[in-house]
């Protein structure tokens, strides 16, 4: 039977070359290339990245690209590195693990005379660290979102106290409580214009009426932060602040009601989580069968083995 590795390698190489030629415009008619050049000069072409253009055509893909975008996750997780630095770090992790596994394999081969595991398997195992790093980044982003939501949700009654006498506005009170929490997630988001990393531009219809250099109101900023970072509490706060401004409501009353609603929601969520965890816990207790069987069956297996000897 012929070795399939070389044809497969050639096929992959050929496919790569075809894709590269396509991206370089080798297959594009001259007239189209000329028009693209003129269009780009007059800003008539769509120069956005491929994922954004695809997202426009297929909305479900837009959601997928948004959720999985590494730069967005880096901004939400408040990591300072760029996409390239993150990629280099992941490559370093993969190399460290790969080198360590290959080293162990090498020493094992020196002592036993044969390779216990092919080197390719070591590299494949090391390669798993790339998706693990991505999952860890997602978990970090999720944790920060939860921390910010919690930071606002559980400080609403303190904000109500601060706004009660009228000496603080809602945004002033939010900044005050952010400075007083041990977890700095909320404060880091609000200070040093960190929120601009994602919420600087907004593709919502609201942004169309604003000039690029126009000063934004606090409500608009909070709304943008809520949308860009997927922070429910910023959205809620912005909605309530708009109500305060438009209807002339008393801030401390509005914040007290919001606090009550948030507390009730937390209690309801806790009930749901407790109910959901019951069958899972039963399953985890059922796993006890494994060590139990292992404890009892191992002596039996040894005895049977000895009997056959």
């Amino acid at each position: 039977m012929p070795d399939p590795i070389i044809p497969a390698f050639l096929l992959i190489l050929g496919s790569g070359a075809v894709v590269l030629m396509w991206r370089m415009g080798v297959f594009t008619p001259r007239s189209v290339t000329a028009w693209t050049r003129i269009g780009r000069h007059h800003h008539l072409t769509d120069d956005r990245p491929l994922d954004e253009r695809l997202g426009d055509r297929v909305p479900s893909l837009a959601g997928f690209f948004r959720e999985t975008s590494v730069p967005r996750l880096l901004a939400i997780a408040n990591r300072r590195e760029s996409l390239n630095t993150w990629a280099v770090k992941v490559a370093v992790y993969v190399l460290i693990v790969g080198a360590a596994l290959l080293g162990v394999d090498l020493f094992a081969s020196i002592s036993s005379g044969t390779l216990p595991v092919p080197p390719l398997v070591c590299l494949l195992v090391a390669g798993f660290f790339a998706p693990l790093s991505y999952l860890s980044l997602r978990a970090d982003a999720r944790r920060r979102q939860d921390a910010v939501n919690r930071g606002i949700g559980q400080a609403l009654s303190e904000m109500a106290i601060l706004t009660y006498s009228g000496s603080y506005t809602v945004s002033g009170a939010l900044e005050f409580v952010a400075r007083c929490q041990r977890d700095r997630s909320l404060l880091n988001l609000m200070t040093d214009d960190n929120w601009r990393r994602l919420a600087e531009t907004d593709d919502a219809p609201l942004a169309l009426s604003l000039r690029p250099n126009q000063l934004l109101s606090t409500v608009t900023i909070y709304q943008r932060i809520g949308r860009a970072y997927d922070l429910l509490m910023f959205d809620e706060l912005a909605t309530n602040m708009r109500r305060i401004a438009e209807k002339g409501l008393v801030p401390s009353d509005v914040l007290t009601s919001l606090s009550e609603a948030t507390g009730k929601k937390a209690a309801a969520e806790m009930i749901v989580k407790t109910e959901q965890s019951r069958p899972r816990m039963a399953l985890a207790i059922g796993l006890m069968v494994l060590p139990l069987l292992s404890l009892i069956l191992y002596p039996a297996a040894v005895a049977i083995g000895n009997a056959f000897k």
Partner: protein
Amino acid sequence: MTPLLFFIQVLILLALGLVIMVSASGFSPRGTRARLLEMLEPLLERERYVASGLGWSLQVWLSIRLGAFGLGLAVGTLIGTPVVILGLGVVGLFGVPWWLTARAAQRKLEMDRALIPFMINLVNLLSQGQQTLNHALKDLAQNPDPRLAHALQPLRAAESVSDALVDVARRGMSPMLERVCVDLMLSIDQTPEAFIEQANKILIPQYDQDLEVQARNHAALAGGRQNGLIVIMVMALAFVVVMRVDSLRVAYASFIGQIMLIIDGVMVMGILWVLGMMTPKTPWVRWDLAAVREQMRKRYA
């Protein structure tokens, strides 16, 4: 070329690539150290929380943990095999604190429960119209509920109520007590009438809600702990039964048998970890009372 030489070349190339990438990524040992300290801080905080829940200092609590570990090792050494020594050491290190943590959590919940009557008493004292918030707090601290006595001690002879509230939160180490202290600190310069209105309208209903969530949290944790106890009891029973039968015990006397015991122990610990992960918890915002005091001072500066 021999395969060994080829292998070494691959390793050298990988190591070189690694060095270049590490230097390109801006790795620094100081950053790693700071991150390590950052990672250790929650562990220490947890130990402090349990110690304060039991009414002990951190040193006493850590000594008890080490003592339990040492006792486990000593008993294991008396019994014999390395796996039993290791197993009992692990029981001493993790089992005893696991059992005592339940008691600490119960005491904390009791302390949190006492906070609502404390606030109601405070409102009642202020309603009489003869005291300011500062005086009423000091008054209440003179004869407190026994569950709050330890935490409220700094208020008894305090010159500055703000400073005393920072100490109260530090002693109590409970998220709900921290919140009460923050609210009191924010209200300290308001008129008694304004505080009474706020307490009735905002604070006491909020604490009721917090306590409900806290109680649910506690119930969920207690349920998880009970499940864990069932797993431990069943496994311990099975272990004792197997070890009392000579023909079964012989199999575990060999090297592979000892490894099998370690694997069983790891599986049991894995089940306990899964149970812990599945127990629902509502995390709380932790307040930095010293920062609140600073912010309040800046407000008037």
